[in-house]
């Protein structure tokens, strides 16, 4: 992460600014024009005061008389110039904002489009927090320099106009100016260079303080039950103290440079008075000229800092831009063919020698082959980490196999046109996800299904009862900011979403784990009457027992497949897994009998 305004960062930063100018050339031009008006009018304001001093104020004091005309002219000149300047400031600020926010919106839109386009495997590789900040804070940081940019351009115009004005007035006074203003600019540059790494460090520490607090509060139950509050406070206080020291370091640099940056132009004005007085003696300048230049210095002192603001934003901007660009440059979206699925009856699903790995060196699935015949229910069983979830994602084409093929009705999923897979196959993933939307919206997902179809799906998922009890039934808002539903209720809603589409192939990835066993049984029995092929990942014996066939996975390989009874008989690993509880119960009973016998013997 660049922390200093190095020349490489500056070059990159200006390139980012260039992109913005190319994207919004009209707004940028008008913003710069408005800022130019502001710049020129700032110089004109000093000139107007100088003119009023020389032509109205001083003559009046010297001669003891004045005219209404002269006074009116002076007043109107001053106000007129200020009014134009105010218009320039308004235009500059508003247009700079419009440009900055438009660019932010462009980036956000592009980044989120990419999120929707990129395959799930890409999502797996990137933590949620990072993706959220790419679309929010990074997109914001990337275009940060656009806010002070028009002002900075205006300030350059202002300095040029001021240089011309001073040179025209008096070359000697101009020399004072040419010494002072580059000195201010240089001091500003040194300031930003010194401040930038300290400010970055403080920012990082702020994040780390927040991380510790988040973690500690999230783990409050553990902290409390193990009585570690004091130790946690010590841990937090250490970070808070580091942040304190970092902020004080920032303060020291600010405290040094801010007063210096104010003192420098003041010293300039004093120099102007001294040099100007000498020039007055030789008659080279008038008193009005003197006042004009002194006033100009006063007016220029603050805006010149805008150049530093743009530079200060550049490192953050480059970091933000690079992160956004990484998302935009990511490739590997799924490709689609032209085939269509025309069948109406339950689908035939087939995995042929499927191999897949998140890390190609460590495949999660190896040579998996099995077929789910139309209308059959196939249970996928295996210990934690055996690749069951990955298999369901391949069957629903969230990911493509590294080798082998997944077929539905004999067609390779990769040959199918866009929208064909989701038209026939419905996958209910392990983690339930509800949109921040109504119950209806969550089930139809904008597909415009009639309410009867929605209710039918809810009935099948055993969700009609609690949904009709909600205050606004189908219109009740659920999800993040909506009504609170239990884990089992959320799962049933997700199931209804799949069923409402009347899929020909239904894939359930442990999708009823939080549902009460008896309710689950009713759901599964209901599913048997549906015209669909069902592939279900399950732990519970009752679920497995309802399947026509079982595919048993062990470490990414199909260890055995057949009916539940067959596997129970011939596959030791399978038997071990599904009968763990029963065996324990049996053994315990035998132990108890032994104890009783012992007791009797003792007695």
């Amino acid at each position: 992460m660049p922390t200093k305004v190095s020349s490489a960062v500056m070059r990159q930063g200006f390139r980012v600014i260039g992109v913005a100018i190319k994207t919004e050339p009209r707004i940028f031009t008008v913003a710069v024009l408005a800022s130019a008006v502001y710049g020129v009018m700032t110089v004109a304001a000093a000139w107007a005061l100088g003119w009023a001093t020389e032509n109205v104020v001083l003559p009046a004091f010297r001669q003891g008389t004045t005219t209404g005309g002269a006074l009116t002219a002076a007043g109107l000149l001053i106000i007129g110039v200020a009014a134009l300047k105010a218009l320039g400031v308004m235009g500059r600020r508003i247009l700079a904002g419009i440009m900055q926010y438009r660019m932010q919106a462009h980036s956000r839109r592009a980044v989120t489009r990419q999120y929707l386009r990129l395959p799930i495997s890409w999502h797996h590789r990137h933590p949620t927090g990072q993706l959220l900040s790419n679309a929010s804070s990074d997109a914001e940081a990337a275009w940060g320099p656009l806010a002070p940019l028009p002002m900075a351009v205006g300030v350059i115009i202002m300095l040029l106009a001021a240089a011309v004005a001073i040179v025209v007035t008096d070359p000697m006074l101009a020399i004072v100016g040419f010494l002072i203003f580059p000195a201010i600019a240089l001091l500003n540059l040194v300031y930003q260079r010194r401040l930038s790494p300290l400010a970055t460090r403080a920012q990082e520490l702020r994040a780390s303080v927040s991380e510790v607090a988040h973690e500690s509060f999230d783990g409050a139950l553990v902290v409390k039950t193990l009585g570690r509050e004091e130790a946690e406070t010590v841990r937090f206080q250490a970070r808070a103290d580091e942040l304190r020291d970092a902020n004080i370091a920032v303060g020291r640099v600010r405290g040094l440079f801010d007063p210096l940056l104010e003192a420098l132009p003041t010293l300039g004005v004093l120099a102007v008075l001294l040099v100007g007085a000498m020039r007055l003696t030789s008659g080279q300048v008038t008193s009005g000229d003197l006042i004009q230049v002194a006033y100009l210095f006063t007016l220029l002192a603050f805006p010149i800092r805008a150049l530093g603001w743009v530079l200060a934003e550049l490192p953050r901007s480059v970091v933000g831009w690079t992160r956004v660009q990484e998302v935009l440059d990511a490739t590997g979206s799924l490709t689609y063919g032209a085939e269509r699925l025309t069948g109406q009856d339950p689908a035939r699903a087939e995995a042929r020698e499927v191999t897949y790995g998140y890390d190609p060196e460590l495949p999660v699935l190896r040579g998996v082959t099995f077929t789910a015949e139309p209308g059959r229910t196939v249970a996928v069983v295996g210990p934690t980490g055996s690749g069951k979830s990955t298999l369901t994602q391949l069957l629903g084409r969230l990911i493509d196999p590294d080798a082998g093929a997944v077929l539905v009705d004999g067609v390779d999923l990769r040959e199918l046109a866009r929208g064909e897979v989701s038209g026939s196959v419905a996958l209910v993933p392990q983690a339930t996800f509800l949109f921040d939307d109504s119950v209806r919206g969550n089930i139809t997902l904008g597909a415009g299904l009639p309410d009867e179809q929605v209710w039918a799906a809810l009935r099948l998922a055993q969700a009609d009862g609690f949904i009709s009890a909600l205050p606004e039934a189908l219109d009740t808002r659920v999800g993040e900011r909506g009504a609170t539903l239990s884990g089992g209720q959320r799962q049933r809603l997700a199931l209804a979403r799949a069923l409402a589409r009347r899929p020909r192939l239904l894939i359930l990835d442990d999708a009823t784990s939080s549902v009460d066993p008896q309710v689950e049984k009713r759901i599964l029995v209901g599913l048997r009457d549906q015209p669909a092929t069902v592939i279900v990942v399950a732990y519970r014996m009752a679920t497995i027992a309802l399947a026509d066939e079982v595919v048993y996975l062990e470490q990414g390989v199909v260890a055995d497949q057949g009916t539940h009874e067959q596997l129970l008989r011939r596959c030791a690993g399978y038997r071990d897994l599904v009968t763990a509880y029963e065996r324990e119960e049996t053994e315990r009973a035998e132990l108890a009998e032994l104890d009783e016998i012992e007791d009797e013997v003792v007695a």
Partner: protein
Amino acid sequence: MSMQALERSALETVRQGIRLSPEFRKGLAGTLVLAALATVGKIIVPIAVQQVIDKGLQGPTPDLAFIRNAVLACAVAVLLTALAGYLMNVRLYRATESGLATLRGKGFRHVHDLSVLTQNTERRGALVSRVTGDVDQISTFMQWGGLMIILAVGQLAIATVLMAVYSWQLTLLVWLCFLPVMLALPRFQRLVARGYTVVRERTGDVLAAVSESVVGSAVIRAYGSEDRTAERIDQAIDGQRRAQVRAQKIVGLTFPISELVASIALAAVVVAGVLLGLDGDITAGELIAFLFLITLFISPLQMGTEVLNEAQNAIAGWRRILGVLDTPADVADPEDGVVLPRGPIAVAFEEVGFHYPEGPPVLHEVSAAIPPRSRIAVVGETGSGKTTFAKLLTRLMDPTGGRITVDGVDLRQVRFSSLRERIVMVPQDGFLFDSTLAENIRFGRPEATDEEITAALGELGLADWLEGLPYGLRTPVGQRGESLSAGERQLVALARAYLADPDLLLLDEATSAVDPATEVRLARALEGVTRGRTAISIAHRLSTAEAADEVIVFEHGRIVQRGPHAELVAEPGVYADLHASWTTATTSATTSASSATPRP
């Protein structure tokens, strides 16, 4: 948060806030003196201009010696005031940052003292803000906005004094011009603040929409609803942009007003000054000094709305922090609490009742004595009161009726450190810290060596699992332990509690995510290692209940049955029903007949 905190006035908030961080006051007088000296720097130029014009340039030829001396004296003054500014800044930063670091620590500690009751998931993020964002806001205000207020007031006061020395009439005129702007400032600020509020809301919408596309990516793809999601995101982004531009327009339109007013003041002073000058009430130098003095009014007014905004945010932040600190820790460590000797532990619930504030009762007069060295299983449906029972026993909450005793002593009289040593709970969510496996297990007993940790894992029958980890005890567990599976996290949490070596181990569905084969192994190991202690498990799988000495059955906040498994399963009731339901779920149709029937 107490109502008292919400109603606290701004002044009262600041007063109490300062009392919480005594560092703020340290050396405050010196800092203020330095601030006053720093503001003097602002009027050096007007004075210099006036002196040069009135004294240096009065004669037919400029008095160069006088001008040189005057300019030199002013230059020295400028450097001195800059030095004062530097010293003031350093002192200010040190005092405020030290005070705020203290405030963060106090806030953090107090949040941990609040009972779990006030720490539900939705509020946790908000509590984090109390010790981060809210404090940062106060910090920014003190070092920028608050400083601005002090400097601006000083600047305006000193400029006004100087102006009044030159001419009271013109001073009045200048104030007449600026007063309306000053009075309008709060109105501008409200306008701007409202604009920003809308921006914040719209930004929240964008975050929500974007997070749907990220968190729900699997569902969006599985149902091909990319276009619909894109549309929702676009709407949110557009709403945000419109709100931002609107706020920017408000700021852009109000910002130049003070400069415009300044130009009116300048024009008025030129006209009135000349007229006064004709009467000899004012010199040319004084009039021109006025022109410079007027510029001192511009920046305080320009920054005004933003400073007021910051002040409002900072006070709101302070108020929220005070609100947290004012919330009494409903479960408090007793002063002079009893320290109980270690050893076999007896626990008793005596007519214990509990209800959440303004909520219906969750437990009704529960009485139960748990003798030392017993192995108890607690069962019941979701919401029957099992977890409340556990939270009361570990004193995460206090009962609203009756009492709980440990070895005959009321739980509320036992010192926290003693209680935590004797009773440890393993919650369902095995929360881990972003560190190594060893560090997480050591959380239970900080002085434990690596050998002791390895030994503990071995005693729990987890040696094989440890062996299989790529870096053994050094394995990083990731944020919230997410590099491990949910089941593995539970194993670590269990080892952590076991290492703490309590007299009573309370398991709240502590192995729910572990696969059946491992769970059975673990249950057996636990039976061994908890021998001699009391073990209470809240069971989700009834196999645990069968292994226990006694089963306590909860229903609707009451204990409805209690006894050994074999007895309870034989009699009609809640337990027999639960057991039947569980057996259906875990047993296939072909084998259920043999195990569903209770053995004699």
